[in-house]
């Protein structure tokens, strides 16, 4: 994976596959503490203790097309090489909480990447005809906060318009890019 936004996209897809109705993604960049923390919390079906214990193992997966699963191991590698850590907690039928920590200034820390594209892909994946997944994306840089909550967008749009509509997605993309620019101090 070239950047962190791609890891986030990949791991949040797991939340969608786990049947989550709400996926909360939070990114906190604290340059004073020199720490970057990414949390992905969902209310999906969760994992039992046995599966959770071996979930970091690349030879453990729920996919049926082959016997390796690299999403979590790749994120673990990305954290480990930056003096960080990856913690996953889960409870069956309650949900899963994932926390990835990086040393912000570490030379091997992958760049953030394009979070607008990641959110758009996720919202599109989560707005299938048969089910709706909501997302909360919160990004904090040294105390400055940007937040996107698809439940608010859904309320504003009404029930008959799907979040996956191109017009809506393009608005969300601009909204995220503008919001991130603001918390980055206009850059």
């Amino acid at each position, binding site marked *: 994976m070239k950047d962190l936004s791609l890891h986030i996209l990949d791991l949040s897809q797991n939340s969608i596959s786990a049947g989550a109705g709400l996926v909360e993604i939070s990114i906190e960049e604290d340059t004073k503490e020199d720490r970057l923390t990414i949390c992905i919390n969902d209310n999906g079906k969760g994992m039992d203790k046995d599966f959770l214990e071996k979930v970091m193992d690349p030879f453990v997966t729920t996919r049926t097309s*082959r016997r390796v*699963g690299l999403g979590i191991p790749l994120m673990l590698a990305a954290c480990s090489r930056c003096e960080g850590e990856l913690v996953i907690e889960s409870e069956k039928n309650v949900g899963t909480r994932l926390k990835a920590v990086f040393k912000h200034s570490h030379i091997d820390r992958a760049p953030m990447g394009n979070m607008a*594209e990641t959110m758009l*892909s996720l919202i599109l994946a989560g707005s299938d005809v048969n089910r709706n997944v909501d997302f909360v994306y919160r990004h904090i840089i040294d105390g400055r906060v940007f937040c996107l909550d698809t439940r608010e967008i859904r309320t504003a749009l009404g029930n008959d*318009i799907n979040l996956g509509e191109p017009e809506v997605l393009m608005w969300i993309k601009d909204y995220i890019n503008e919001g991130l620019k603001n918390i980055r101090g206009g850059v």
Partner: protein
Amino acid sequence: MKTIQELEEIRKKTLDTINIRKDRSGTRIVVGMATCGIAAGARPVLLTIMDEIKKHDLSDVVVAQTGCIGMCRLEPIVEVYKPGEEKVTYVKVNPSKAIRIVNEHIMKGKVVEGYTIGAESK
């Protein structure tokens, strides 16, 4: 400054086109978005397809995502389902190939043979 209020305008504007899309008799474009696809560059491909659909106002086309279909070395993979036609699988797609696929296959009905899985395995 983007505001939530703008969504009201989008709502009014899109209500009509949505009704066309609801009958779901149109084309389906499916992009592989598992770890393998994402690492190979599926995200920009997906968003390029979205952009093209919006640009050309293709109201009867839907874009969907799928997991790994077991051919990771050929990712990004894009499958096109047109009603009454056989599925076409495009492999090693990038944004510029995606634009051609939409412009030629989706809009004009001409399969871009050179990008298909058949051409790749030759």
